[in-house]
């Protein structure tokens, strides 16, 4: 009896495995042929299922903090200007054109006259005045962006004047930031709390339903000002924390987009003909930061020694599976002002030893590298760096902390070495330069707490200068000085990678800010 039962079981098991293999072969083949079909004419309809690792926190422009929130805000709200897809320039959006006054102290924007909010009311200058004034409160997460703005006035129904405290070159980029997106004046008579529950904007999609931590649904805005757009009936952002599950949902046809797949799975995914692996440029730059509050790293020679000990090529191979390029500046190549001729300390352990000899720690010292738990990229990078540092006499212990705890250590500078990264939200380097290189610039020079008077001075000069060549020159000098001082080691530039269903067409993200561009996206029937 037991024998026959076992016999049946194993027969069943073999049958299942065999069927699975055959079916796998079939699906791959059929998908392969349909993918090369001629369906390249956009069709309307369908809801895009967008699987992401985290949910939005707050979807009102002025309150949004992280990218999970920002990228949703940008579907429902528009700004006066918007960064072009490749991030090189600004394009008109709610404003048709703009001009700086001769005294360089004010900017005048002409608005489109055919724009309606998703509730059907007209968008006029008073909405713009309210929105930008509201966004300028320094208590808001991105309030600092508007620090150059003195006042905002409505000249007439469709003209707005923004007055700056001093000549302020980044202003057009500032108003292109999501936090300055246009909401109805006085939130259409609602309180902020009520508005948060049912936000109204001029973007291609409008709010439908939000099950916090699970899914956020938007539907097509019937009043959208771009004719015949969007093609999609709606977008649903689902929160799926596990990398693997997101990927399998796209492969299984349950989602159209997997945001943030792990680089190590890409090779196997590329063999699956039912999905696309899309690669977009990005402004993301990863850093190895050194805290100026940790004694050895106050010594420039120590920092230089670390600079010579980082094998970027090996890191890119191990962490990004080769999908990246070594960084030669803290700015990414997609950012205006990036200087491609910058030189960084090359990987050379002999030079590293020489630098260390010149320092106050010629025989090395004990230190730590802090990594975020569950981040295999940081773990691997730390091991590679640890290995090299050991050869020059620096004993670095790898300390693992969870995301939140590690974040605290960075904010307080209570670490020795750690990893972090930056992306930019606007098309002007001003925000990022102050953030990464200026100690008083809001993020304590990328949490290195490294003070550099020259950089601080050049950064404010660059923000006020109106001549582009002069600005470029200043940003170049800042990058050179920063590389010389080396408060951090810029590691690599990595692309934005999305895995999408073959049925989804014309999906893209902005190469500088990472914003999803869904207005032209469509789903094959």
């Amino acid at each position, binding site marked *: 009896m*037991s024998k026959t039962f076992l016999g049946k079981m194993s027969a069943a098991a073999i049958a299942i495995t065999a069927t699975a293999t055959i079916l796998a072969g079939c699906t791959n083949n059929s998908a392969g042929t349909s993918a090369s079909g001629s369906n390249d004419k956009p069709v309307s309809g369908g809801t895009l299922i967008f699987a992401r690792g985290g949910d939005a926190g707050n979807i009102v422009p002025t309150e949004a903090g992280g990218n999970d929130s920002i990228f949703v805000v940008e579907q429902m709200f528009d700004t006066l200007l918007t960064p072009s897809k490749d991030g090189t320039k600004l394009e008109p959006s709610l404003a048709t054109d703009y001009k700086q006054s001769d005294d360089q102290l004010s900017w005048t924007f002409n608005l489109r006259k055919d724009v309606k909010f998703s509730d059907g009311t007209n968008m006029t200058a008073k909405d713009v005045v309210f929105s930008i004034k509201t966004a300028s409160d320094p*208590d808001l997460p*991105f309030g600092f962006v508007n620090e150059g703005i003195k006042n905002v006035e409505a000249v007439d129904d469709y003209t707005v004047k923004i007055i700056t405290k001093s000549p302020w070159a980044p202003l057009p980029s500032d108003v292109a930031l999501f936090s300055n997106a246009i909401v109805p004046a006085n939130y259409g008579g609602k309180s902020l709390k009520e508005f948060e529950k049912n936000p109204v904007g001029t973007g291609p999609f409008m709010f439908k339903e939000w099950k*916090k931590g699970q899914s956020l649904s938007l539907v097509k805005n019937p009043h959208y000002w771009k004719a015949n757009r969007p093609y999609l009936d709606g977008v649903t952002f689902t929160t799926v924390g*596990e990398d693997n599950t997101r990927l*399998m*949902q796209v492969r299984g046809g349950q989602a159209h987009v997997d945001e943030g797949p792990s680089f190590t799975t890409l090779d196997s995914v590329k063999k699956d003909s039912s999905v696309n692996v899309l690669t977009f440029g990005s402004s993301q730059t990863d850093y190895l930061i050194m805290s100026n509050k940790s004694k050895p790293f106050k010594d420039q020679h120590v920092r230089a020694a670390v600079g010579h000990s980082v094998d970027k090529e090996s890191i890119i191979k191990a962490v990004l599976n080769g999908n990246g390029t070594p960084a030669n500046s803290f700015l990414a190549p997609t950012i205006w002002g990036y200087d491609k001729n910058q030189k960084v300390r090359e990987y050379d352990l002999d030079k590293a030893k020489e630098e260390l000899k010149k320092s106050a720690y010629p025989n090395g010292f004990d230190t730590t590298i802090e990594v975020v738990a569950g981040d295999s990229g940081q773990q691997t990078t730390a091991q590679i760096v640890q290995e090299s540092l050991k050869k020059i006499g620096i004993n670095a212990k790898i300390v693992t902390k969870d995301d*939140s705890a590690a974040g605290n250590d960075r904010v307080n500078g209570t670490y020795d070495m750690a990893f972090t990264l930056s992306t930019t939200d606007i098309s002007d380097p001003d925000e990022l330069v102050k953030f990464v290189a200026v100690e008083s610039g809001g993020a304590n020079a990328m949490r290195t707490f490294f003070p550099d008077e020259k950089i601080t001075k050049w950064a404010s000069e660059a923000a006020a200068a109106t001549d582009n060549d002069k600005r470029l020159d200043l940003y170049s000098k800042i990058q050179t000085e920063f590389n010389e001082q080396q408060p951090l080691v810029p590691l690599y530039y990595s692309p934005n990678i999305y895995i999408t269903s073959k049925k989804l067409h014309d999906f893209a993200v902005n190469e500088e800010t990472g914003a999803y561009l869904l207005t032209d996206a469509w789903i094959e029937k």
Partner: protein
Amino acid sequence: MFQRFILPTLKRLVTLIPVALGVCLLTFLLLHVAPGDPVRLALGDKASAEAIATRRHEWGLDKPLWVQFLDFVVGIFHGDLGDSITLNEPTATAIAQRLPPTLLLMAGGTLIGIVLALPLAILSTKKIGGFFDEFMRVFVALLQGIPSFVLGTFVIILFGLQLKWMPVGGYGTTLMDHLVSIVLPSITIGIGLIPVLFRGFRQAILDSLESDSVAFGKAKGLPDGLLKRDYVIRPAAVDTVNLIGLQLGSLVGGVVIVENVFAIPGMGNLMMSAILSRDFPLVQGVVIVFAALVTVIYLLTDICYTALDPRGSMS
């Protein structure tokens, strides 16, 4: 009746209060000892110190720890679990949404576990030490070594991606969606339960086979079928109810992982994201509900056990 069931149940419910308070205090302390800042996580790296301070005050995180704890405990007695800081809605609302999938998953997983383990145990005990029995011993030991996230991934690849019988994750929107979505995760949990249930069932059957009553029944000349039903399976069932109850309690841990692998928006999933984002009120709320759930399951188990076994009363 009163002596056997009601009085012990009441006593047990009263002991729930100190247990709940203890759980609250422990969770509260652990959360606050662990470094990390919900405000920084919510506002992002670029927020200014002023923005951080404003939000901290808004969320009541600037109050002394003991005040925060007291607020929370007083709230519970008013039936108020507080507001989740990341979800921006009452903790109770979030939990009410997330509890059904978890209960469904626990029930489905246990059911599948029993359906798979019981026949195997009965077959295994047909010939103790026989080939099948030995095979199962090894198989069960191997199975126990497979973590549930590996098992879950395997189940997804086989049934979701290759055979395409089932969705690979998520929970859907309609009741039918929910039931279909719950199948694969339930199978994962069910398979994970096999080792413990199989061993428990097998031992229970062995025990009753060796009992005096079976010897007595045999001596009385009872037919084999009747003997098995009344003298072996039924007494064994009493022990297994207890076993299943205890398993349900420890299942809570497994559910957290399986929900994350299958993207089921249940309590485990909620707890994971709440911990990672340091959403203190939400973590406390979820932990309390989990603690209450486990206590109630144990209580129900004891009631069933007592009802099935005519000898004892609940202790």
